[in-house]
């Protein structure tokens, strides 16, 4: 639990800059975390923070979504100036970042003209622009240390990412592109990023639960109607995508 954690009765979710970083279904990650916490009797306070507002430092889990090149550059500039997100992460808050959000929490990423842009330096990764766009289903096996089963997602990006010594790859790619070197995503402490875009946590409930556990501690397993549909959906997606 982070030094600022407020116990299971009050989980604070902060969606960072949905006005700039919400290209395609990113709200799904917020809704899934909220739903999975509430089903376990945890009270949730979810806030969306736009780019003209300060980022609060009291959040338990921060979410960053995908975005086009120009909004990504603007978001990085504003988040650096604001300082709230990096401060919260330094205090032990959980950060889950997707696609453009994943790139911008690193040390550097490729801007709208391919120029290097300074990131938030919250994760030891460095990103640039690849030769071609990776678009399609992605399957990847997660670092066994995290105890999360195979990831299923959809990626749509032209980024390539190198992971430095201060971070570890989240997963090994079975199908798809990911970071571009056979790995996918990265994590260090409680900061985790992935190229699975949009509602990545919907297909990967165990990853959602890992983030929740980091924020509030051990959780009971879920059953019931919600989990039954989620399981069927996840199994259908895993069966539909061949391991290449």
């Amino acid at each position, binding site marked *: 639990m982070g030094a600022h954690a407020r116990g299971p009765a009050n989980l604070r979710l902060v969606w960072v800059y949905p*006005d700039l970083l919400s*290209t395609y*279904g990113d*709200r799904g990650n917020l809704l899934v975390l909220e739903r999975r916490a509430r089903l376990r009797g945890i009270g949730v306070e979810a806030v969306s923070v736009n780019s003209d507002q300060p980022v609060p430092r009291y959040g338990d889990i921060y979410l960053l979504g995908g975005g086009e090149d120009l909004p990504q550059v603007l978001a990085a500039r504003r988040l650096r100036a604001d300082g709230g997100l990096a401060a919260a992460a330094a205090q032990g808050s959980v950060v889950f970042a997707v696609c453009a959000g994943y790139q911008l929490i690193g040390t550097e990423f490729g801007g709208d003209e391919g120029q290097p842009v300074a990131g938030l330096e919250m994760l030891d990764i460095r990103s640039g622009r690849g030769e071609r766009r990776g678009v399609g289903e992605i399957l990847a096996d997660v670092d066994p240390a995290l105890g999360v089963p195979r990831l299923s997602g959809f990626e749509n990006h032209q980024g390539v990412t190198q992971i430095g010594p201060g971070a570890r790859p989240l997963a090994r790619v079975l199908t798809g592109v990911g970071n571009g070197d056979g790995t996918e995503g990265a994590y260090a402490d409680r900061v985790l990023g992935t190229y699975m875009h949009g509602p990545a946590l919907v297909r990967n409930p165990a990853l959602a639960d890992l983030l929740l556990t980091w924020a509030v501690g051990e959780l009971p397993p879920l059953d019931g109607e*919600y989990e039954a549909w*989620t399981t069927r959906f996840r199994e259908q997606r895993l069966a539909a995508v061949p391991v290449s």
Partner: protein
Amino acid sequence: MGKLPMRARVATTLGGAAGRMSRLAGRGDGSVIGGVIGLRVEPGLLSLLAADRQIVLVTGTNGKTTTTRLISSALSALGEEVASNAFGANMEAGLAAALGQSPEAPYAVLETDEKYIPAVLRATNARVVALLNLSRDQMDRAAEIWLLARRWREAFEAAPDCRVVANVDDPLIAWAASGAHQVTWVAAGQRWHEDSWCCPRCGSHLRRDDLGWRCHECEFSRPSARWVLDGSSVIDSAGRVTELGLALPGRANRSNAVMALAVAEVFGVDPAAALQKMRSVTSVAGRYTQVERDGRQVRLLLAKNPAGWLEAFDVLEPAPVPVLLSVNAQVPDGRDTSWLWDVDYRVVRDRPVFVSGERGLDLAVRLEADGVPFQMVSGIDDAVSRVSPGGTLDVIANYTAFQQIRTAVGRAA
């Protein structure tokens, strides 16, 4: 057609023959294959076919097919033939086929895919481009929308003879259109705001109020409009208020109609005459069609992306009329269903909801997260059988799911 060079005539004739054969073989309306063959024979075919005609291009994320139809109807008040790709074949081949099929038409209204606007504008030297709206859509294959808006803007800067008719309530559209030499601004409304929270010029957060939107950093703001949609009426430039009285349902179609009136004005069509023609449009390529199925009324609504779903919900019959939601993820739909999470499904909580489609499970998980009770069904007939005889069923489906349901109910319109 007498003015066309020989190769263009050959290209058009071959294309026309291929289109007829395709229709006879039951492969759709044949317009695309005709155009493809024609363009292979003469790559400059679109320019040649467009020469000496007054051309309108219609583009935007939602409402292209319907607005194209409304503008064609309005221009028919001029008493001359109007060429059009009425069935939504909106890339170069479909456009060439539409012009080739109506060689004598002095006017053409062409629905154009968003990505093709710069090339088609150059090729056709269009008199008018109508810009409806721009929002997230099929992101696995479509261009990103800020990038699209920038390309459009550059294309308009290079086309001094073109008048852009643009919706001022969509900031991205307003920014793209403000690069044009001639603009007619239309306050056509835009309920979907999720892709326009930030200033397209400088990226700052936009402020919105009853009067529109404004950037506080760079002062880019909503232009004042010549035509205004106000509820179910239109206010024209002289301040006259006229009830639209369309047969087509919903706010989105009233928005499309006001855009069509502004385009018709460019060609000197009297608004009253244009409206009279537009009121006779009842269904467009199967959309809004009502058919009887097994003693129940079934109404078909197409929604392909989050902004489209928002507008489709607006057209639903009041609760407790049930609704079938059907989603596929084939190539024309976009292979990525992430967009489901950008739609707020809580609005259908108050009625029976049926779910079908190749990606019905994606939808099931989505509805569950929103706390919307639903029943999974095997298809349209299963859903119909769960509606009381004599009752009504609304259907909202995305592109290929819509086509499948339309085929199942027998292409009644």
